[in-house]
């Protein structure tokens, strides 16, 4: 028996469609998960080349602006972690990266709020897109927590003021027993480990949900049949299966 790499076709060029020729054990959990995943999000749907015509508006740019800002927040945050507080408080390069971190957070929230206003006024939760909206809401709330613990990690008078004000509010809820805003070690761990993990995971699910459902079609104009221009979709553009509206 000759063993050939099925991804390499005879002319030596890689051919993705042939990867299906790899041996498969249909009863294994790996195969089952793969089938469910590929059926829900085939590569062309996961990273499409085109979007419906109505997506040609600046209002659709703010989701990806938020993702880009989050990328800068995380990259600069990693640099701050590598170099440490003596660097970011004292050296001018450190202060610069610290400022990049802070201002990219400003851009992140700025873009996120315009994004959510846009989605609110187009009622983008229509057509089985509830989960997209809800993961957005939770991302927003968790991001506020991430920013809050960031302000507590500044190690200056500002952060002392914020923590001593916040402790009374949080103690009045009872949560102060486990979440102590004057505990610097705990706050910086929430800021650089726990909350970033949650935000990134939520954004991942959020964007996958958008790919899964397709971009919501706009409301029909007066006198128009809703969704008439969308093959295989109901009036809210809820597609049931593989086809993506062109």
């Amino acid at each position, binding site marked *: 028996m000759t063993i050939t790499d099925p991804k390499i076709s005879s002319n030596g060029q890689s051919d993705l469609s042939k990867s299906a020729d790899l041996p498969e054990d249909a009863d294994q959990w790996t195969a089952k998960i793969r089938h469910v995943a590929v059926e829900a999000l085939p590569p062309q749907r996961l990273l499409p080349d085109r979007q*419906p*015509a109505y997506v*040609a*508006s*600046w209002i659709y740019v703010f989701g990806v602006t938020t993702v880009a800002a989050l990328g800068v927040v995380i990259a600069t945050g990693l640099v701050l972690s590598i170099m440490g507080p003596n660097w970011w408080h004292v050296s*001018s390069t450190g202060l610069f990266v610290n400022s990049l971190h802070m201002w990219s957070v400003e851009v992140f929230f*700025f873009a996120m*709020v315009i994004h959510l206003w846009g989605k609110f006024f187009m009622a983008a939760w229509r057509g089985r897109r509830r989960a997209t909206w809800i993961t957005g809401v939770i991302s927003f709330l968790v991001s506020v927590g991430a920013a809050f613990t960031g302000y507590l990690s500044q190690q200056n008078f500002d952060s002392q003021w914020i923590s001593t004000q916040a402790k009374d509010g949080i103690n009045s809820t009872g949560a102060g027993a486990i979440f102590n805003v004057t505990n610097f070690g705990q706050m910086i761990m929430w800021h650089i480990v726990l909350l970033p993990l949650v935000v990134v995971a939520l954004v991942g699910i959020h964007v996958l949900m958008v790919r899964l459902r397709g971009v919501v079609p706009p409301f029909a104009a007066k006198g128009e049949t809703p969704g008439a221009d969308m093959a295989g979709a109901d009036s809210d553009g809820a597609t049931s299966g593989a086809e993506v509206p062109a």
Partner: protein
Amino acid sequence: MQSIALVVGTLFGSLINLNHPGNYIHWGFIQMSYSNLLVIILMVIVFFAAILIPFKTHKNKGADR
């Protein structure tokens, strides 16, 4: 680097003097710094700009363009 920071700092410092306690607006129980109000106004402006400014697309790529 230090000198660049000094120059940039002086330039912006002469534009907006931040070396004083913040200014706040008071609308009944609503209290907000002017900087936060400015950010909210900017978000509203950018929101309407995003809706009104036409978005250039690639021409002749398909029937839906």
